[in-house]
C-alpha cells in the first residue's frame, strides 16, 4: 500500500513515519508540508492512503480532500476540533486525535483495510467543509484543480458559475475552471448577499451585474460588466430584486 503524509509540522510527520516503519506492507511515497504539495503528490503517486492534517499552509485538509481522487482513503490527523468530529466521521476513513498511540494508529490501518474499494461521494468533501464552517461565515475562496496544479479563486474574483452535469464551470478573470460540485452546494457555501442564483443553472456575483433586461414574457437577461449575457428566470429575477431591494 502506498501512503502520503501531509502535515506542516515535521515532528508530527515523524510520529507517523515511526509508526509506519513497523508496517512493512505500507510504503511512504511522499511527505508534504503544505496543501498544494499534498494535492500534487496525490496526483503523481496515486496513493492508497493519505494521512492528512487539517491546518496547513496553502490549502487546509478539507480543501485537499476536495481536490484528490475520491478513492484515496483519507485519515485525518488533528489536534482538536470538537465540532468537526462528526464531519470527519462522514468523509474520512478515520480520524486520529493528536497525540495518538501506535495502537490507535494500527486501528486506523485496520479500518482502511476493511473499507478498501469504497469511493467517497464527490459531494462529501464540500459538505464537510460546510459543516465545519461557523454559522454566518461563508466561503472566501474556491479551490480548483488545473491539471496537477491547484488554482485558488477568491470569492470576489468569481464572475459566475454555470451548472454542467456533475460539474460547475467557474468563470473568473477571463478563464473557465471546471470543478466537480453541484451548483446548489456552491450557492450554499458562498455569501448569499454577494451571489445570486438567477437561474437554475447560473449563480452570479452580484457586483458583476450591470443591468437586467426583459427577454421574453417570463424571462430576463442579465448583462455582466464584460458584456456576457446570462439567462434569468422568473424566480431568479425575484431573488435578485429582493437582494438589491428593488
Amino acid at each position, binding site marked *: 500500500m502506498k501512503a502520503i503524509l501531509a502535515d506542516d509540522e515535521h515532528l508530527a510527520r515523524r510520529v507517523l513515519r515511526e509508526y509506519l516503519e513497523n508496517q512493512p506492507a505500507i510504503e511512504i511515497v511522499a511527505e508534504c508540508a503544505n496543501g498544494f504539495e499534498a494535492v500534487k503528490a496525490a496526483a503523481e503517486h496515486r496513493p492508497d492512503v493519505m494521512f492528512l492534517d487539517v491546518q496547513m*499552509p496553502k*490549502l487546509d485538509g478539507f480543501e485537499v480532500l476536495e481536490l484528490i481522487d475520491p478513492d484515496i482513503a483519507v485519515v485525518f490527523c488533528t489536534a482538536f476540533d470538537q465540532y468537526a468530529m462528526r464531519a470527519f466521521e462522514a468523509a474520512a476513513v478515520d480520524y486520529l486525535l493528536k497525540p495518538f498511540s501506535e495502537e490507535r494508529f494500527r486501528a486506523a490501518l485496520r479500518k482502511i483495510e476493511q473499507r478498501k474499494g469504497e469511493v467517497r461521494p464527490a459531494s462529501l468533501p464540500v459538505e464537510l467543509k460546510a459543516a465545519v464552517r461557523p454559522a454566518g461565515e461563508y466561503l472566501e475562496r474556491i479551490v480548483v484543480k488545473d491539471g496537477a496544479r491547484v488554482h485558488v479563486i477568491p470569492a470576489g474574483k468569481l464572475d459566475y458559475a454555470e451548472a454542467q452535469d456533475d460539474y460547475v464551470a467557474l468563470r473568473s478573470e477571463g478563464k473557465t475552471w471546471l470543478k466537480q460540485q453541484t451548483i446548489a452546494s456552491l450557492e450554499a457555501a458562498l455569501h448569499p448577499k454577494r451571489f445570486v442564483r438567477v437561474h437554475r443553472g447560473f449563480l452570479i456575483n452580484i457586483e458583476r451585474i450591470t443591468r437586467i433586461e426583459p427577454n421574453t414574457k417570463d424571462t430576463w437577461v442579465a448583462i455582466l460588466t464584460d458584456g456576457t449575457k446570462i439567462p434569468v428566470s422568473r424566480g431568479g429575477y425575484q431573488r435578485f430584486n429582493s437582494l438589491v431591494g428593488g
Partner: protein
Amino acid sequence: MHPLLHSWKATLLYLLAWVPVGLPFGLLMWRAGSLTALEATALTVPVVIVLAFVCITPWFMCRALPLRSTNTLRLYGQWALAAIVVTVIVTMVGRVVVSSLSGALPGLERGFTAVSPVLGAMSMMIYLLSVATHYVVIEAQTSRRSELLAREAQLRALKAQVNPHFLFNSLNSISSLTASDPMRARQMCIQLADFLRTSLRLGERASIPFREEIELTRMYLGVEQVRFGTKLRTSIDVEPACGDCEVPALVIQPLVENAVKHGIALLDEGGSILMLGRIVKEGMRFTIENPYDPLAPNSRSGIGLANVRQRLEARYGGAARLDVEASKDVYRVTVVVPVNAS
C-alpha cells in the same frame, strides 16, 4: 421605559397594589376633613391614581442622578424640587376634582381646605418613599449585572489561558520527540509545564506588571519554537520602562498566539514575529507584526482578538486601544494602554 409599564399585566398589578395605600389615605381624608364617606372617596380615588403614576417617574430621574456619582448637594436639591413639584401637582389635581364636583357635593369645598395640607404632606412622603425604593431596585439590578459581567470576564480569561489546539499539538511534538530525541522531549515537557503553570497563576490576578506578561509570551514562544523549528523566528524589543506598567493579565500572549497560528503556521517558509514595546504620549504601546498569507484558508484573527478587545474595554473603557492593520502580507496589531491607570 419603566419596567412596570412593559406589560398591561404589570401595570394593572401595580395599580392594585395602590388599593391598600388608598384605603388609609381615604380614611384620613374622611376623619381629618370631616368629609362624608362619599366625599372622601370622590376625592381620594383620582388623587391616588395620579399619585400612583407620579410615583413611577423617579425611575428616570434616579438614573439621571446615580447615587454614587452625583454631588450630594445637587442630589438633595433636585429631589427636594421634584417633591415640591409633585406636591403641587397632587394638590392641584385635588382642587380640580373638588371644583368640578362642587355642584354635586357642596361639603367637599370646605372639607378640602382643611385636608389639603395633610394631602400635600402625605403625597410628598409617599413620593420620597418611592424614590428610595427606586434607588434600592436600581442598585440591586446594577450589582447583579456587574457580578454577571465579572463572572463572564473570568470565564473568558480562563478560556484564553490555554488554547486546546496549542496544548494538544505540543503534546504531539513531545510524543514525537520521545522516540527521536528523549532529552529534547523532556525539555519541552518542562517548558510546556512552566508555561501552563505561569499562565494559570497570572490568570488569577487582575493585573500584572507588563514584564511578567512578556515573560509568559517568551515561554509560549519557546514551546512553539520546538513545534515549528526554523519556520518561527521572533524578536522582542521592549523598553525597560514598559516592564513596570500594570496591565490586565494575558492580553499579549493570546495576540502572539494568533500571530503564530494564523500567520506563521500557514506560511510555507514561516517568518518573523516582531514585537515592539514603547512608552508613548498616551501610555504604553505594544506592536506585534507578522507576515501572513492573505489567501490562506483560515487567516482570520478569530476569537482571541475579540476576547482581548473586550477585556481591555472592561478595564480601561475607551482609554485603551487595539488596532489591527492588515496590509498585503503583513498583519500588525497595536495595543495602547494608559500607564498605571489601573
